[in-house]
Each structure stands twice: as structure tokens, then as C-alpha cells.
């Protein structure tokens, strides 16, 4: 029996996420939920450090986290994840190699985590849960492909506008220098674009 039965809404969030891929029965979902651990992090606390092997795949139920690495002394952010999204040092998790990334909470965060061992067990025992796994990893792969296309197709301004239109919430919650790093632009460029009135942002496209 899971220790967080009184936090039904958290499980509902996860169930909703999974239902985008496969409609699991209540029994199947309970079987999966039973393998999860719930973890809480303070702001700026790290979920995984450079050189560690990532043990967990994390689903954010509350809060915000970022994934980054150091290029010389500079932080380079490659992911910012919010409620309802998955974050983890994924290559390390999948391949068992040391993580070159840090995953860190940007706000106090609550995540559902599953260890690789438990996940393997789930896959062994349920073909439908394995299908969830296949579809989640496919989705993550396609997100990367889309990101690559956007980086090639769009110039800096277009990328800024595209991001802001799709993620107005992150503009409120995330320090600008982090967003700039994620979008691979200088912080000055980011704030200049942000100060531009909407109408001019569009017409200058």
C-alpha cells in the first residue's frame, strides 16, 4: 500500500499524464503507483549531481526544476520542467553512465520517482505498462527533434516569441537569466526582446 493514499490529487495528475498514452485500468495503475516513491526538495536542492548515476525518473507533481551542465564556469540549461512533466538526467538513467548534468529544484518541488530497477520490474510484469514506457520515451525523443528543428528554423527573436507564447507561466516563475540560457541567447538579448512592445515584436518578424 502506498504511503501517500491521502494525496489522491497527486496520483490523479500522474494518471492523467499516462492516459495520454495508454488507458490503464485502476488495477494496473495501482500496481504502478505502488512502485513509486514520493520525494520533496527545497528550492535549489539537487536531485542529481554531476558524476552520479541517475537512479530515478521523476514526474513533477508540484514545483519547478531545471537541468543544466557546466561549460567551463558557465551554467548551460537544457531543460526547465514544471508540473505534469518528466525530468531526470535521462541518458544517465537509461544507460547507467555518470551524469554530466545537474538536476535542481527552482521552486520547492514534490516529485513521484521510480527507480530503474522498479521500472524494469514493471516492464517485466506488464506489457501495457511497457507500452506506456515506449510511448513516453518516443514522446521525449520527438520533443528533442522538434526542439532541434526550431533552433534551426527560427532566429533568436522568433525563438523568443515562440517560447513566450507557449510558456507564459514560465516567464513569471523562472529568473530571466535561466530562460535566456535555455533559449541559448545572451541575458541582455532576452531582456531587450522582453521590453519590446508586443505589436513591434510581431511586425519585426
Amino acid at each position, binding site marked *: 500500500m502506498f504511503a501517500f493514499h491521502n494525496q489522491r490529487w497527486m496520483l490523479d495528475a500522474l494518471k492523467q499524464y499516462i492516459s495520454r498514452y495508454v488507458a490503464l485500468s485502476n488495477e494496473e495503475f495501482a500496481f504502478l503507483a505502488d512502485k513509486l516513491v514520493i520525494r520533496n526538495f527545497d528550492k535549489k536542492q539537487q536531485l542529481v549531481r554531476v558524476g552520479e548515476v541517475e537512479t530515478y525518473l521523476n514526474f513533477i507533481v508540484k514545483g519547478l526544476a531545471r537541468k543544466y551542465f557546466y561549460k567551463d564556469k558557465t551554467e548551460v540549461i537544457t531543460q526547465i520542467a514544471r508540473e505534469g512533466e518528466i525530468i531526470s538526467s535521462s541518458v544517465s538513467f537509461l544507460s547507467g553512465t555518470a551524469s554530466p548534468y545537474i538536476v535542481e529544484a527552482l521552486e520547492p518541488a514534490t516529485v513521484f520517482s521510480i527507480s530503474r530497477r522498479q521500472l524494469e520490474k514493471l516492464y517485466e510484469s506488464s506489457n501495457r505498462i511497457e507500452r506506456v514506457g515506449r510511448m513516453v520515451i518516443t514522446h521525449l525523443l520527438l520533443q528533442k527533434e522538434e526542439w532541434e528543428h526550431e533552433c534551426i528554423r527560427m532566429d533568436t527573436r522568433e525563438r523568443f516569441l515562440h517560447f513566450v507564447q507557449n510558456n507564459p507561466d514560465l516567464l513569471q516563475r523562472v529568473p530571466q537569466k535561466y530562460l535566456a540560457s535555455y533559449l*541559448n541567447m545572451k541575458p541582455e538579448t532576452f531582456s531587450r526582446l522582453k521590453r519590446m512592445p508586443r505589436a513591434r515584436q510581431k511586425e519585426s518578424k
Partner: protein
Amino acid sequence: MTKKKSPYQAALDELYKYLSGFVPLSRPEFSLLLPYIEIREFEKKVKVIREGEVERYLNIIARGLVRKYLPIRDKEVIIQLATEGHIVHSELSFHYRTPSGSVVETIEPTVFLSISYDSLQQLYDKFPKAERLGRLIISDLFIKKDLRYFDQLRKSTRERFLEYIRSHPHVLQRVPQKYIASYLNIKPETFSRLKHLVRLK
């Protein structure tokens, strides 16, 4: 007595080896998959999938060389150079069933082992093992893509050039220089300068 072998036997043997690298697969199990696989042949410089078409296939290259690129205004930006044993297709279009934004084009005459979108769904429904195979193959693609992006962000032009040449020595012989430069996101001038540097060693 010798059994007459299909001209594609070697390619199918390679496929068997490739798949059983992910999951234990018996020969009889493998032969159950074969009816779902199509063999497709293309001359060089053929667009296998054009911009705006919906990608029907996932292809594994049995023989040949292929590039995938994004046509951007007056140029083409290469995002994949694929050779024997690699998977290449317009994946966003294939999975989302939307018009392709990328073009897949052969560089050399090429033979694909292809599976259509519909066949793949049938395969997943009929063979429980296909689920694991699919999950592991896609995880592998995910890892490769992530590492390439990480290298692009982290490494200098020179490092990326040297590493690519070191890990793909044969590609330099087979692929026009400008394609490799585009794939590595290096200016053609810089590329020839770096290439010169390698020769002198």
C-alpha cells in the same frame, strides 16, 4: 545441398543481429516479423520523403547512405547522415501523422528495410516482445540524439570535427565535404581548414 538465398539475405541477417542486440530473439520469432518488413531500393539523389508529405515508413539502412535535412529558405541544414545499420526517417511526421518538415534523400544507391506505420502498430498489438524491442530501440535513438545535442553545446568546432572524423573514418570518403560541414554545423571554409590540419598529422 545449398539452399538458394535471397539476395537480401545478408541484409536480413544484419537486421536479425541488430534486433537481437536489444532483446533475445529466436530465428523462428524473427521470421514472424519478416512479413511486416518491406525492402525498398532507391537510386542515389532520390528524395525518399519530401517536405509536406506524411512519412509512411521507418527505415533501417541495409546498404547505402542517406541524409536528412531541413530546407530553410535558400539552404539545406543537414540534421542526420545515416549509413548501414542506422534508422532514418522523418520521425515527427511518422509518429504524429503530420506533413514532414524534413527531407530524406539518398546520397548513394540505397536499400532500406522498411516498416510502415500501420504494420508497426499491428506488430505492437500482435507480438508482446515488439513492445520491448520498440522501447529499447527508441531509447537508443534518444540517447544518441541527446549526446549529439550535448556535444553541440559543450564542444568546440575543432573538437566536434576531430571526434566525428575519428568515429566515422569511412564517412569522409563517401560523403561530400559540404554535407559533413552542414551536419556538424561548421562553415565549409572552417571545415577545409580543419581537414587540412588532420592530413598534415
